[in-house]
């Protein structure tokens, strides 16, 4: 008797477990799928309607935002009506499923797919072949794309330029950010100064490109210069130049593009440094002053070591950022005049030349470059016992 009851209980629990597994799967996959479908149908309706653009914009916004909220509500409602045991198992997946499904679709799986594509020629894997046939086919090129990435002349130029971006861009952003934070801390107009410095952070790269194009605007010598830089140069007795396009000084013409990003990013580093500097205990600074340290010693021997963590974080962030730099270069020079970077090459190969193999190999190289940071983040996370 006893044993049979326990097996039946076991059977039932196995049954619930299997059911909950299927249910979990359905919920995790079903929620996003249905969400996409409903949104899609709604959107087709919107796209085909002849309403004015204002109406379309308004309806689209309400549809998009409301649709997602409603879907969560509906699925939660369904799951809450299920028996207790099932509900506690399924509910977390209603909450976490859509997010994880989207992350997988947009980042995790594409990483593998891009790596797969990078092993093939310009048109990707040939269609309708089995795995082994595929490896034997013409379209499979092995690591040839990677060889090309590191040997092609334009790619080497891009690596060199990206290195300049990383070295000069991130260092200057950090130095200026730190300098401004330090000065602002002791000035009489800290708030106003900081607002003005980080105002450029709200400006798009395209907008920044226009702003700086206007500064670099070139008029032949003898005409009135309308670009500020050339006006200053002519005023000092020099010759006007189209600075970012000035091939004769390549690769240094890249600096005229890098300046733009320093202008945009200094605000970011300033904000973080400012907060870090304010976190240094006043007693520490006071004690070192009493011990006779001058301001420079305090800065280099007390402040810098104290905020080292912030410096590393800011610096890493800007390095990653400059590694992927695209918009500024694309808008200002389109990669001409020796200013190509990895991301512009990626765009050119993937979408202009339609060489998906080469483009994917570049993307993978870009990914490999950030792997150390990823590992560092994961290690930090592992150290957090709480999770």
């Amino acid at each position, binding site marked *: 008797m006893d044993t049979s009851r326990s097996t039946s209980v076991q059977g039932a629990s196995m049954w619930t477990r299997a059911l909950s597994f299927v249910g979990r799967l359905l919920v995790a996959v079903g929620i996003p799928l249905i969400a996409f479908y409903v949104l899609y149908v709604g959107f087709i309706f919107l796209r085909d309607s002849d309403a004015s653009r204002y109406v379309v914009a308004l309806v689209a916004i309400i549809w998009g935002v409301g649709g997602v909220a409603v879907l969560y509500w509906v699925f939660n409602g369904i799951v809450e009506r299920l028996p207790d045991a099932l509900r506690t198992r399924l509910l977390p997946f209603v909450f*976490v499923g859509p997010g994880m499904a*989207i992350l997988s679709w947009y980042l995790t799986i594409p990483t593998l797919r891009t790596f797969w594509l990078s092993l093939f020629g310009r048109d990707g894997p040939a269609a309708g072949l089995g795995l082994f046939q595929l490896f034997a086919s013409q379209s499979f090129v092995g690591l040839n794309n990677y060889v090309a990435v590191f040997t092609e002349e334009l790619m080497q130029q891009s690596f060199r330029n990206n290195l300049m971006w990383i070295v000069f861009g991130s260092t200057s952003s950090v130095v200026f950010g730190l300098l401004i934070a330090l000065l602002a801390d002791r000035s009489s107009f800290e708030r106003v100064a900081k607002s003005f410095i980080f105002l450029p952070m709200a400006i798009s790269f*395209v907008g920044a490109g226009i702003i700086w194009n206007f500064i670099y605007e070139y008029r032949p010598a003898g005409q009135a210069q309308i670009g*500020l830089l050339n006006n200053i140069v002519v005023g000092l007795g020099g010759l006007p130049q189209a600075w970012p396009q000035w091939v004769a000084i390549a690769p240094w013409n890249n600096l005229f593009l890098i300046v733009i990003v320093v202008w945009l990013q200094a605000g*970011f580093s300033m904000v973080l440094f400012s907060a870090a500097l304010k976190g240094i205990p006043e007693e520490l600074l006071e004690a070192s002053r009493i011990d006779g340290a001058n301001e420079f010693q305090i800065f280099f021997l007390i402040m810098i070591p104290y905020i080292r963590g912030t410096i590393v974080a800011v610096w890493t962030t800007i390095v990653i950022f400059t590694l992927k730099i*695209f918009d500024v270069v694309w808008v200002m020079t389109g990669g001409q005049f020796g200013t190509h970077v990895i991301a512009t090459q990626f765009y050119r190969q993937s979408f202009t030349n339609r060489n998906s193999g080469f483009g994917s190999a570049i993307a*993978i190289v870009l990914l490999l470059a950030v792997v150390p940071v990823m590992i560092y983040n994961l290690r930090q996370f592992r150290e957090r016992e709480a999770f």
Partner: protein
Amino acid sequence: MRSAKGQKVLGRSLVNATLLLLVLIWTVPTLGIFVSSFRNRDDIATSGWWQIIPYRDWRPVSAVDIKELGVDPDHIMQIEGVTGTFDQFRAGIETPDGKRVTWIGNKRLGKVEIQEKVWTASWNFTLDNYQQVLGGQDFTFRHADGTVEVHPGDNMIGAFLNSLTVAVPSTVIPILIAAFAAYAFAWMKFPGRRELFIMVVALQVVPLQIALVPILRDYKALNLNGTFLGIWLAHTGFGLALATYLLYNYISTLPREILESAFIDGASHFRAFTQLVLPLSLPALASFAIFQFLWVWNDYLVALIFLGGNPEFELVTQRMAAIVGARGQDWHLLTAGAFVSMLLPLTVFFSLQRYFLRGLLAGSVKG
């Protein structure tokens, strides 16, 4: 006794002066296009925007046609009491009473101007540039069968609306999805919780370039390419890892007792989430919202790839890039357009600066 106080005052003014200089350098680029956007087309093309600051310049008082003067430009001439060669007159010769005599034109045709140095400034301000950028006219095509097709012209209002239609859902959707996920990570137990969160942490720095080609293929297969939905989802996908991580950091620190007492009162997770956690997390939601909004509004690459095929859905950034490419010398359009494109992000930025700073300090930096 030149006191420490005196030194302090000196130090402080040095700090203020240096900072002021830096602030000026940082502001001048934006100021330049702002000022230029209000100057008329010809002024922008022929003079620097800084000439709105009053300066002293030579202005003609009177002019004489050279034929009436009867001088020989190949020799030294005497005009209006000063002597010099043709080249000297071309450059302008100053008279003892502070005027200047300048030969305008070539040797045979032209005039001689008597000029005076006066305070002047280029102050012909106008709103025409904005009108032209915003209210561009529609192009009308008439087909052979008599039907009429209207295409929106170069009008930023359309692009502005498109950007808004892209940016608002692309901000709200990831936040909503991320908040649900963050709640589950913080308050629920489920298998795979740790592994999924490790995925979230790892994906934060993955460059989005890795996804563009495969996702574009999916979009072509699903007919999502060039639709608002497609770009909302793309921005959601690329912003979600960071959003989930940041919101988890915030939601997991909410006081346990509040939620536990809610559960004792019989509240479901859904109610606890919508009625307690969401309102309590408002600061974190707001600070991420600002970042995501600015990021989406200012984005160029994602829109270029997923909306690029559909000119009807052109966004502000693409419109601006197109004007740069096609009419890079039309500074009256570029400056006004750039300012229109900056208007909304700057407003958001300044009105919500507090949240923006909070977000920055919490680590809102996109991978």
